[in-house]
């Protein structure tokens, strides 16, 4: 994976596959503290504990389409080579929380990449799932909560390609403002 935003897309899709109806995504860039935190929380069916122990083993997976599962092992490897770590908490029928930390200035840390595309790809591809996206840069935050953007559960505003296109531009603009500290 070339960008951390692709890892986020991947882990979030796992949550959706696990039957989640709402996914919380947090990106916290504490540049002054040299710490990057990613958190992806879903309310899906959770993982069995025996799977959790073998999380970093790519040959353990609950899928049936093929015998390897690389999503979490790849994220774990990405975090660990940047002096970071990964922590996964899971409860049956409550959901799963994936927390990954990175040394922000580590030379091997992949760029965060295009978060706006990740978020709108998730929104467009999964119209029945809600997303709460929080991006913090040095304490200033940006929040996108699709639950607030839908007036009623059947609101189709977020499946309109025109709206999605402009939403992507809008998120990109907000994030670049956040990075340059003009909120």
């Amino acid at each position: 994976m070339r960008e951390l935003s692709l890892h986020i897309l991947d882990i979030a899709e796992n949550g959706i596959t696990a039957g989640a109806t709402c996914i919380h995504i947090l990106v916290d860039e504490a540049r002054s503290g040299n710490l990057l935190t990613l958190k992806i929380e879903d309310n899906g069916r959770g993982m069995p504990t025996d799977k959790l122990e073998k999380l970093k083993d790519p040959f353990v997976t609950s899928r049936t389409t093929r015998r390897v599962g690389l999503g979490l092992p790849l994220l774990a490897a990405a975090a660990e080579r940047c002096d970071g770590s990964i922590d996964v908490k899971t409860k049956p029928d409550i959901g799963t929380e994936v927390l990954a930390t990175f040394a922000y200035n580590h030379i091997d840390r992949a760029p965060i990449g295009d978060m706006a595309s990740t978020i709108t790809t998730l929104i467009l591809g999964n119209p029945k799932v809600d997303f709460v996206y929080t991006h913090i840069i040095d304490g200033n935050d940006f929040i996108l909560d699709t639950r607030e953007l839908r007036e009623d559960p059947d609101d189709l505003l977020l499946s309109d390609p025109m709206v999605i296109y402009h939403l992507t531009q809008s998120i990109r603009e907000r994030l670049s403002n956040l990075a340059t500290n003009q909120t």
Partner: protein
Amino acid sequence: MAKLTIDDLKKIKEQTSKATSLRHGDANVKVTVHMGTCGIAAGAREVMNALMEEMAEADRQDIRVVASGCMGMCSSEPNVTIERQDGEPIVYQHMDSNRMRQVFKRHVLLGEVQTDFALAKM
């Protein structure tokens, strides 16, 4: 705190020159972008971006886009499946943004299967 609200989204909608009516009824075309770890690593998000842009340009009300997981054919990722009501579902392989644009313009809009990029009929 910077928050994107429903008003912002409505403004976004108003900014778009074309009237975007809400979608009703059945979809005539379903476009599935396979987004497993393999697909994402191979560039499925870029394919999805191209698809979003083409959708916004075409402004058609009867096309549905769905993200799905890996279908087990990781070596041919990114894969995209096109299901038109008047034809068999076609899986395309090794997609990129240019291929996606061509498949959208030819197959999704006009019904011409792009056999050069096709992996299989389902």
